[in-house]
């Protein structure tokens, strides 16, 4: 085993049952070159202070549980390594802009409610029975939406979006990327049903094009792209309404 060195980890702690507001607390953690920030937190919980609260599971940047602010940046703690943060101290706090439930645990419910509201499932363009086999979809058609399927719902993009921090009604980057994923799928015919969600005040027009969401995304989903190309779609939809007053959007 590599020789451990100590590193100071400062955590923004908050317990709703006895803290009026969050406060920083510092821990000394032995750290080897291959240790992630998550492993640092696990050391604190296992050996120093069992009351520390944080979510984690897969350890391989795919379950989306362990997002947090590491030195002010939204990161997955499992794929952020202490060696890159030497000599410390490392400052860790709950994902920005989201309500803190306890310590590093934020409220995920708002996000999931939005995700549920955008009809995030295939609304078939042409229904097909199982006996007819799979829909045909060429690799080129798959490429048109594949990157948007890679979202792991880690919400780092929400912590990167000041608009969401200022107005938590905004549907936000990740969920709009998911909406676009279905609209852009050659098998899907649900765009007209989802369009009112994008057109609404909490839809794409709330975005002020900061672009940091795409910068912090650990899976290169590029949610800013999904949001901003739908501004054009939404604008077209708005003007087409005057041309076809019965609401026959494309």
């Amino acid at each position: 085993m590599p020789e451990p060195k100590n590193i100071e980890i400062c955590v923004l702690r908050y317990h709703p049952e006895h803290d009026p507001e969050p406060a920083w607390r510092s821990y000394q953690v032995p750290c080897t070159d291959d240790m992630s920030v998550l492993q640092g937190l696990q050391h604190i919980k296992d050996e120093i202070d069992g009351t520390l609260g944080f979510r984690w599971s897969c350890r391989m940047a795919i379950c989306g549980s362990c997002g947090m602010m590491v030195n002010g940046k939204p990161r997955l703690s499992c794929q952020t390594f202490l060696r890159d943060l030497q000599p410390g101290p490392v400052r860790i706090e709950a994902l920005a802009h989201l309500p803190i439930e306890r310590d590093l645990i934020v409220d995920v419910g708002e996000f999931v409610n939005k995700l549920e509201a955008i009809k995030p499932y295939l609304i078939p363009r042409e229904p097909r029975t199982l006996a007819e086999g799979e829909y045909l979809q060429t690799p080129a058609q798959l490429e048109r939406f594949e990157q948007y399927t890679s979202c792991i719902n880690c919400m780092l993009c929400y912590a990167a979006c000041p608009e969401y921090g200022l107005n938590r009604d905004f549907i936000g980057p990740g969920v709009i990327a998911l909406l676009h994923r279905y609209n852009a799928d050659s098998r899907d015919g649900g765009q007209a049903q989802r369009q009112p969600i994008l057109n609404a005040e909490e839809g794409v027009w709330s975005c002020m094009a900061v672009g940091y969401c795409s910068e912090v995304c650990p899976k290169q989903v590029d949610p800013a792209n999904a949001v901003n190309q739908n501004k054009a779609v939404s604008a077209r939809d708005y003007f087409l309404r005057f041309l076809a007053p019965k609401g026959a959007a494309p």
Partner: protein
Amino acid sequence: MDVAEVDVAIVGAGGAGLRAAIAIAESDPSLSVALISKVYPMRSHTVAAEGGAAAVTQAHDTLEAHFHDTVAGGDWLCEQDVVEYFVGQAHQEMVQMEHWGCPWSRKPDGHANVRAFGGMKIERTWFAADKTGFHMLHTLFQTSIRYPSIRRFDEHFCVDLIVEAGRVQGLLAIEIASGGFRLIRARSVIIATGGAGRVFRENTNGGIVTGDGMALAYRHGVPLRDMEFVQYHPTCMPGTGLLFTEACRGEGGFLLNKDGYRYLQDYGLGPAEPTPRNKAMELGPRDRLSQAYWHEKRKGRTLSGPHGEVVHLDLRHLGEKRLRERLPQIYELAVQYLGVDPAAAPIPVLPAVHYTMGGISADGLTAAPLAGLYSAGECSSVGIHGANRLGSNSLTELLVFGRVAGMEAAAYARTVPHGAPTKIGALAEEARARALAILARPSGGERIATLRREMAQSMEDGCGIYRTAAAMQATCDKLAELQQRYRRVQIDDRSRVWNTEWLLAIELGFLLDVAQAIAHSALSRRESRGSHQRLDGFAERDDAHFLKHSLAFHDGDGPPRIAYGPVKITRSQPGTRAYGAAGEQADAERRAREDVHA
């Protein structure tokens, strides 16, 4: 305590739980479904499955071939009628996932593509790049949102089943955000909580894979079947145990020892050829590959790394372009976690615990020997994996048997009324008091992490790739001691809101029970079969005495009682498990025999 009443309750919202919920909602929207998970559904460990899901697809493939690969791969400890049903349903489930939007990787003509996988004779593994489980889980979760009859209880931790009048009638859960209790009354319950890989030290599993559902059923008298069979995945990251999918080898990766030699040819898996041949060399089954590593290590032909002895997974000859297209996540993992560019250097790997073949005893229709209880997925032993699971059969299992569990639990729910509220309420109060007692333990006891570490180390020492009676006995003794010490486990946190330490303590109890079932089942099986390999005079398979399922029964405070049950053999009599050139010869002989009989 809050009370909710539903027709069917499903514990666990990973692939199997979601598939079951959708099956119920689609077939009968009037039935209410509670979907309970200690995490949000998309965090479930199905998310980490990489390689793919098996289903006979190509014109030159047959259900027969998938059946034989699975039964031989499981060293004939499979329920053959169940395997037959499984292979028959597999393709339809893949198409169903496609209709729900799963972004399967495609061939240029637009059809779903299939890749080669270990132990599979013909390419039949459907895949979505190297994130198949991730895409399946998100597709299922998002599809489940369509159905208003599915009521989710996200971040609810199930602490006990409510069993009354000889049947399961619901469960008690902690709402994690408040630490309050919620009784969910149900006419039937499906357990879909996944495996128990966290009982071992080095494992590929997420932190949530703690055998909760297995332990819940076990404590209520349901036997855990075939628990001694624990799969070591041969290519994992040293230190963390994170997985490098078998698809690395399906795409043509090599396993090399310290001399750069493809050592698998020395273990009956050859001949070594430059491109992958199915069921040979690197595409042999996982148990054989992990065992070969063990032998190489003993011969001093492995490389020393900071986290133990390793061999090399060499992907360099595939080239960066193909790696980025077919194995993007593997590429990212190697670069970020190990600082290794797989296009330029071989990846150091070693075997780590990956999968529990055994689980809650279930008949071919997923029913447990407790009325109203069903199980699906890794927590369940429906009988298709036998003594060793083939890669890409488990994702298919989630779908095929998730659906069956949903249909069966729904059918049962229609036949029984809800039980008497007073009796169920009283049982729930008792379970609540037991869970709260942990919070009230005096301080000065044992730390959770200490017990967990000792358990995991002991399991690795006694129930690893190769086993001996002495080492297994030592593990059994150690587990008994840990069970005693567990009663004095203490927690720092006595609050209720988001008390994750409290949940860890309860999980440790689940882990210890499952660990005992594994260790005692292993000790009692005096033969070698599949992933259970002994060095102490039981190195051969012994069909005369052990062509049987082991059944571990919970027995109060003592160790589990081990019994045995029959194995259903239909078409395939136990034969020699051969791979590589020898395997092809054996296959030809089998076909010739069958032609004569036909």
